[in-house]
């Protein structure tokens, strides 16, 4: 059996509150990029975001949290997605096996910190939010919501974070350290990140158009997604349905610049090469690449060059970025795209790369712009982040 079994998935994003809703949006080009409503920012007129149209109060109600809770939005989104995943995997007794939780976040509880920063000293009732800034707080809250006791940790490598949590989870299963692990990531929109990306001048003023020659930058988004990975022993013993398998993973560092990617995409190249090696696959066996494709001038050029180096310019498989639909959801991006990769395998489809018009001058790489039906055995998914962090995952059909 190749790879580690995926037995459950859960997601909340700008294009849907369940896996099914996300799939319907993906195949019907239902874009989730809109004007921001939940955060008051002076940039609201000039940016568009992939926002989940639920207020914090609605999320509190959905999770049935007590009024004195101190959940950040990041934690609430994460808890909703993780609960779905556990339910989807039909797990009734979470601690029956050696179970872990590997979460990922870049903002953690920043949404609460920035909302109350200078008010903490004035309003005693807000003090409870001070502890929720820590990235680990998000994972603890999710674990508590699941009733999970065991190994809990969190990864933060900016926009590649969740790819690394899926990779670590797969390794923990392979090594036998855990029997079951819930892996993924969560990030809520925050003024902090909106302004950060704004200062870097990589936010689009319209709708992001990955791999287009006239691309103007990214739309930020928020989301959470978690997957359940289980050992083959559990799968066999409980006759579990396997949705797909994590067959390959690679992590490399671009070692070029804190925020920019190298021109030749060295980190991306090494990550893809490693993932193929772990999966024991040749490049031509990849049927679809869910690219990182943020639509920043720098990312798409660097990623495209790396794809050319791995696959050859004329032999690149069908590829698309799903970020025109969801926005760039930072630490959650690789987790939602992992679920999209599994959906591509389950439904034998390549999702379209929307908003594409003009091919890039630097190479002959044209994304798939319409929904395409074909047999999909292997999907490669890229995620790259600040700090040169490059990660690639490969998902394969269960045989």
């Amino acid at each position: 059996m190749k790879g580690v079994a995926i037995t459950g998935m859960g997601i909340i994003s700008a294009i849907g509150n369940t896996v099914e809703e996300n799939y319907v949006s993906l195949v019907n080009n239902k874009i989730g990029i809109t004007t921001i409503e939940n955060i008051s920012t002076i940039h609201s007129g000039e940016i568009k975001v992939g926002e989940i149209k639920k207020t914090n109060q609605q999320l509190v109600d959905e999770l049935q949290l007590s009024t004195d809770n101190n959940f950040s939005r990041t934690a609430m989104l994460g808890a909703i997605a993780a609960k779905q995943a556990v339910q989807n995997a039909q797990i009734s007794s979470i601690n029956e096996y050696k179970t872990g939780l590997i979460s990922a976040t870049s903002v953690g509880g920043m949404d609460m910190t920035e909302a109350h920063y200078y008010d903490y000293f004035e309003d005693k009732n807000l003090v409870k939010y001070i502890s929720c800034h820590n990235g680990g707080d998000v994972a603890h809250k999710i674990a508590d919501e699941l009733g999970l006791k065991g190994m809990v940790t969190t990864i933060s490598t900016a926009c590649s974070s969740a790819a690394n949590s899926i990779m670590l989870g797969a390794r923990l299963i392979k090594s036998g350290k855990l029997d079951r692990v819930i892996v993924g990531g969560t990030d809520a929109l925050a003024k902090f990140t909106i302004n950060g990306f704004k200062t870097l001048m990589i936010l689009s003023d319209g709708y992001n158009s990955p791999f287009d020659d006239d691309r103007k930058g990214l739309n930020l988004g928020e989301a959470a997604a978690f997957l359940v990975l289980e050992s083959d022993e559990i799968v066999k013993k409980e006759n579990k349905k396997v949705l797909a398998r994590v067959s390959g993973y690679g992590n490399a560092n671009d070692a070029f610049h804190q925020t920019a990617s190298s021109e030749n995409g060295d980190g991306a190249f090494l990550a893809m090469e490693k993932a193929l090696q772990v999966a024991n696959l040749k490049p031509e066996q990849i049927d679809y690449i869910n690219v990182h494709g943020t639509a920043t001038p720098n990312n798409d050029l660097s990623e495209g060059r790396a794809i050319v180096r791995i696959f050859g310019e004329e032999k690149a498989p069908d590829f698309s970025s799903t970020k025109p639909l969801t926005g760039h959801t930072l630490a959650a991006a690789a987790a939602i795209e992992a679920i999209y990769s599994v959906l591509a395998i389950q439904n034998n489809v390549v999702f379209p790369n929307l908003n594409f018009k003009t091919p890039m001058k630097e190479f002959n790489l044209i994304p798939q712009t319409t929904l395409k039906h074909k047999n999909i055995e292997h999907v490669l998914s890229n995620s790259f982040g600040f700090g040169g962090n490059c990660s690639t995952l490969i998902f394969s059909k269960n045989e």
Partner: protein
Amino acid sequence: MRKTYINGLGCISAQETFDTLFLEKAEINENDTILAVKPPIYKDFISPVAIRRMAKGVKNGIVASAIAMKEANVATVDAIITGTGMGCIEDSEKFLKAVIENKEEFLTPTSFIQSTHNTVGAQIALGLQCKAYNLTYVNASVSFESALLDAKMKIEEEEANAILVGGIDENADYTTSLFKLAGFIKKENEVPYKVLNSTSKGAVYGEGATFFVLENEKKSTTYAEVLDVEIINKLAVNEVESKCSAFLDANDLQVSDVDAIVLGFNGDVEFDAYYKILSENSFKNTPQVYYKQLSGEYNTASAFGLWVGAKIFKTQQVPKIIRVNNLEKPAYKTILLYNQYKGIDHSFTLISKC
């Protein structure tokens, strides 16, 4: 299965730990609620231009990792794995304050760029031009142990022969004031701040950067073998002893095999019961060590604890300043470390002398 050895150390802490043998110059400060690092001479390691741009966590991480690599005599590594609880909180503060105070206008990207949790790992990679595996863990007081566990797995998977592993956290003024408000840090009027048998809540906070070079081979610089690491999100006080003995069992060891136990006592009367239950029961006849009176409490202070453990092996002695009890052993071969923070994020780490 391949073994994991600690072959080099680098430690920047509130004590002089980067060019000393083993805490011979250490001093306990019982009068301050915040302990700052004793800075090394940064320009010996980093160019003056770069120093100006870097937050102290990044600088300390770069220096500590360089010292560890020099000691282990490695020029490059196959993985860089860091842990940090609060990340680059100085730069996060700087950017957030600017966003709020300038009402989202007139912002510059520098502090945002450096605010991501993986900045230290990224800057080390950049400096070494190291394109290998690079990961950052951010789960409060198991951030460092997560990195250590990942590194051990990497060596066992034969994916790496030499790995840099480190824990980094830095103090930042406003966050410190919030931690005081929330009661995480001890109140100002309760001096002297003693870690053992404290009757007050909260802890004295600190900061630091502690790096280790882990390799699959034993060599002349080897301090210890890392036998096992376990992370548990939640335990009740009365579960600690059974969990601890299960961890020893899994490694075919008994309490009597442990030559010293390194405990993460931080002087918080609410949570030191987790350590006391081990200290007063299973391990009452074992030499006991504590260290947060020297390092202060911070999310990755347990990396300082592992540094202490490694130094005990090398010197075969436990300095008085870190002894909980007066017991001694003729030789120190096996050391167990246990840490938690506020009753969550528990870790057991087992090391042995080679």
